[in-house]
């Protein structure tokens, strides 16, 4: 902490007159809280393991810290048009640099060209000699190379449709969507109003519509776990496994603890179904050995995978 109430300006002293004791009490209650930057980073699961565990544990117990971790809502800063253009110019400059030939080694060009000529001459000589030799020995055996399509896994992990659940973040959403599509619910929750068409479609098993509606929301509410998770499950039902993996990636990035186990399980299903069996197996082994609520189905899935690989179709 860098200030205390002796640093308040006149306006603050007036506004808080009579409340100084409560403010002091509030500060004392939170003197051991993690710094703001850790609180903001923890929900995205980007901190080193020990620190992540410690901050996550703290967050589960502190409403004040959860409020800080939520961030600024719809008032979060954005890039101005000028900043967007500046950043785009910077990216394009880097991209051009990556694709351009390396001029710093231009002095080597004559040497390389010279070496190239010598190498080509040697190659021509070797090929001519080999042809001469092979002509003496007769035609080589014909080699037929057949490009095989990528093998689809013969066994697909089964999965069930998870019911719609809403986390605290969605239920207590206080912001307003940048561009309103549906009127807010009675309690003014614009996010729930926007989620409704997608989740209703999901509930009635219309996964194409659910995917369409939720995809339209994904960039407007990047921190809303429900969008990415049910988008991922909808894509699983649509057999769009790479799409499902992308949605689960975004769900992972949100780092919501309530959904973490489900995201991990359905991601393993998507990995297995997209042919990344080793990745799926590693993920399932983690879930199975963690003895969490999904351990049973993960251990069963590992058995199924073992049987399937022992008896390929």
């Amino acid at each position, binding site marked *: *902490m*860098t*200030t*205390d109430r002796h*640093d308040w300006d006149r306006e*603050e002293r*007036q*506004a*808080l*007159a*009579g*409340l100084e004791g*409560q403010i002091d*009490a*509030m500060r004392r*209650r*939170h003197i*051991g*809280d*993690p710094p*703001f*930057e*850790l609180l*903001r*980073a923890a929900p*995205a*699961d*980007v901190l080193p393991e020990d*620190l992540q565990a*410690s901050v996550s*544990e*703290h967050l589960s117990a502190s409403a004040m810290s959860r*409020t*800080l971790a*939520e*961030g600024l*809502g*719809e*008032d*979060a*800063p*954005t*890039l101005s048009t000028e900043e*967007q253009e500046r*950043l785009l110019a*910077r*990216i394009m400059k*880097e*991209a051009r640099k990556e694709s351009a030939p390396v001029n710093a080694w231009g002095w080597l060009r004559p040497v390389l060209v010279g070496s190239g000529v010598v190498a080509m001459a040697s190659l021509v000589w070797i090929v001519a000699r080999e042809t001469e030799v092979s002509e003496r020995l007769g035609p080589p055996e014909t080699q037929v190379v057949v490009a095989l399509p990528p093998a689809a896994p013969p066994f697909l992990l089964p999965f069930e449709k998870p019911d719609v659940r809403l986390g605290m973040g969605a239920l207590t959403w206080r*912001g307003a969507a940048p561009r309103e599509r549906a009127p807010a619910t009675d309690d003014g929750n614009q996010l729930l109003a926007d989620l409704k068409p997608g989740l209703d479609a999901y509930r009635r098993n219309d996964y194409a519509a659910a995917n369409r509606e939720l995809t339209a929301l*994904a*960039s407007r509410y*990047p921190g809303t776990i429900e969008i990415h998770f049910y988008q991922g499950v909808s894509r699983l039902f649509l057999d769009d496994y790479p*799409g499902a*993996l*992308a949605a689960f*990636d*975004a769900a*992972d*990035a949100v780092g919501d603890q309530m959904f973490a186990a489900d995201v991990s399980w359905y991601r393993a299903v998507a990995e297995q179904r997209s042919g990344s069996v080793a990745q799926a197996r590693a993920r399932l082994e983690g879930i199975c050995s963690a003895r969490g609520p999904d351990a049973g189905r993960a251990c069963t899935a590992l058995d199924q995978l073992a049987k399937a690989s022992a008896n390929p179709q």
Partner: protein
Amino acid sequence: MATFEELYRQHVQAVFRFALSVAGKREVAEDLTSEAFLALHRNLASIDQSQLPGWLLTVVRNRARDWWRRQIVERRYAEQFVAAPEPEAPPVESWLLESADLKQVHRVCLALRYVQGMTRAEIAARTGLTEMQVKGHLQYALTLLRKAHGVQET
């Protein structure tokens, strides 16, 4: 099939906001955003565009993990944090957390100023807001606080 520039304009704000939330510094958020779009530029031909913005957010998250790993080496953070102990929160804390009149930005500015004890400049640096915006949000929130707690105008 959208062009790179179209994809950039469509997703840059969401990617930047996410980057700012995980890194907490505007310049780092710009670096992470830039790296994510550069990765997109490299892989544009092979990416299924329906995977955006999830694909970009994953790049940011992975880069942010590397960045935090370096930060932890440079800065010493406590390893254990304590949750607020009993007794109950004072009424002003309950108001800060629960008042329907406050927006999230007001709660954060109030908490950073009066709970974490930051100056307005420090709040601005850590949230990406300008100092003027921080001042405005605090003034508005204090007006509401004064009304809610019946503090007399002087």
